[in-house]
């Protein structure tokens, strides 16, 4: 009761404290704590088997944690809390559709489960760009189309908190960008979004905060920019190989390290401004690329392993 008051006060949509879930010997979720404020876009990142889905499903109230507490909109989601259900929207990682129904019928059926009318279902089809597939049966949709339909089904009752488990998996670049727009628009309306992804670049663009997860634990949790900055990694300036002599590169002001491979010559620097202006002076900016550290580097740094989506 006490924490209920606190959570309602500080506007936290989700508060998770030290949840654990083991399957036999495997600690799928191994002491996860996090809190997501109302209106926040929160991402959980990590490789396969990190425990993202399990964490999300515990918060949604689909699974019972072995220990730890979850507060969702100030209430406990477990055991099944029907007061919460209309306020949350869930897209499960594996799409869940009624057999032999068309896209429109899927949406109408899910809408009716929340007491929402059919008009809203049609709106949702437009929103995810499936209007022309309205009368196609679920099993005749492509992977990406199924994914979009599944997201539309999660949105149909306009929930306050949205859980999306790898919503952009299987989407082509165009559909992915469209979905980003949809998600941003939802966030702008004050909704909270928790989502998982394998795309670190995407999380960097979309999320207010991310948690990087591996082997059931959260390794780091912050704003993407802060995580990257905290890494304090050098900037990489890349030139086409042969366009600039290596000894000259090593002599540039601010150049810490120079390496070469088949295609390119890469200068590592902590003073990119100096390096770039020196290169500009020598007219060597053609085909130049600047790469700053990303979440992938953060992941590499945290786990000692290369990130493989």
């Amino acid at each position: 009761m006490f924490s209920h008051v606190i959570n309602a006060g500080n506007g936290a949509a989700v508060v998770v404290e030290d949840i654990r879930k083991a399957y036999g010997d495997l600690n799928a979720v191994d002491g996860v704590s996090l809190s997501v404020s109302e209106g926040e876009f929160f991402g959980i990142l990590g490789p396969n088997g990190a425990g993202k889905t399990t964490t999300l499903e515990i918060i949604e109230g689909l699974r019972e944690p072995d220990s730890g507490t979850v507060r969702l909109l100030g209430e406990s989601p477990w055991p099944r809390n029907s007061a919460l259900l209309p306020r949350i929207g869930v897209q499960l990682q594996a799409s869940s559709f009624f057999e032999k129904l068309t896209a429109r019928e899927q949406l109408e059926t899910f809408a009716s489960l929340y007491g929402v009318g059919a008009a809203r279902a049609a709106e949702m089809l437009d929103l995810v760009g499936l209007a022309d597939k309205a009368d196609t049966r679920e099993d005749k949709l492509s992977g990406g189309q199924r994914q979009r339909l599944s997201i539309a089904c999660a949105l149909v009752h306009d929930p306050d908190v949205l859980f999306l488990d790898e919503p952009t998996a299987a989407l082509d670049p165009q559909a992915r960008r469209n979905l980003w727009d949809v998600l941003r628009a939802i966030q702008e309306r004050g909704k909270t979004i928790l989502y998982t992804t394998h795309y670190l670049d995407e999380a960097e663009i979309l999320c207010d905060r991310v948690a990087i997860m591996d082997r059931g634990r959260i390794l780091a949790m912050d704003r993407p920019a802060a995580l990257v900055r905290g890494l304090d990694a050098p900037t990489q300036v890349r030139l086409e190989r042969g366009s600039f002599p290596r000894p000259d590169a090593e002599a540039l002001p601010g150049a810490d390290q120079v390496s070469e491979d088949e295609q390119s010559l890469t200068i590592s620097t902590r003073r990119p401004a100096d390096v770039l202006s020196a290169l500009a002076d020598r007219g060597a900016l053609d085909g130049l690329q600047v790469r700053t550290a990303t979440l992938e580097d953060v992941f590499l740094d945290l786990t000692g392993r290369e990130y493989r989506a």
Partner: protein
Amino acid sequence: MTAFRSLALAMLKGFYRDRATLFFTFVFPLMFLVVFGLLFRDAGAEKITVGAVGEGPVITALRETGVLELERHDSMDEAVRLVRDGDLPAAIEQRGEALTFRFAASDQTQAGTIRGIVDGVVNQLNLADTNQAPRYTVDTSNVEDSSLKPIQYITPGVMSWGVAVTSVFGAALTLVNWRKKQVLRRIRLAPVRATTVLTSRVVVTIGVAMVQALIFLGIGALPVFGLQLVGTWVLAVPVFLLGVLAFFAIGMLVGALCRTEEAASGAANIVVLPMAFLSGTFFPIDQSPAWMQAVSNVFPLRHMNDGIMDFLVRGRDASALLVPCLVLTAFVVVVGAISAKVFQWEDS
């Protein structure tokens, strides 16, 4: 649209958009109905053929009984030869007031029947000749409804079986498929009660069963088969509905125990097929050995079949509702409770 209606609609569409399901629900059992119906159409209507020579009141009266078929012969010698050769069971000759009756004793039952008929006709004519009112009169009629034809037996059997198969499969496959495809989990995340999901499936099952029953009865009533709804047939309705519920409960149990559709249809077949053979669907139960009849008493299909036949064929009164209704209700309660116990929303 309410959650209840849209779920029922979703189940119904999953059902009728599947050709194989439609076939096994409607066409397959109907094939049995048609084959059995045609096969046994004339059974029981067969008349005994008897050789007849000469003409007279007795010959005429025999023909009018409608039980014997009289085959004309010119001489008694010829007719008797046929009897001796086993081509006719008996022959009768009337010359004026003299009657000759010859029969083959090799088939005693048939000989007895024919003798009885001939004696009866002769006695009746003798009595009429004396102009006396008969002292003893017998009120005779058969115990079944007078319209009784084999189709009256065949239809309840095939109908119960067809409905049982569909109810078990429908319930089990929806459950397994919805669990496998995570639809159940997804529904669980919506503010819908489990009982809403359950009752919508019950209603769809009953609806489909009623459509099946109407089709079976309709085909049976075609002139070729000549099924008639007679006597107390209305009383068969509660037995039918309870039967559907009993098989629905069995379907839920199968669906709760099986992970895949293949396993579920295998298990459903294992449950329903032996029942069908031992409960009078493919051959009448009273022709099977006593132990088999006893065993078949544990099957809900036997009670559904018997209960429906009691009214549709035997014209019994409401007291005959008791046993089948009690047994079937017990099935619904017990099997339903077990399946509720083992039911899971998702594969763990």
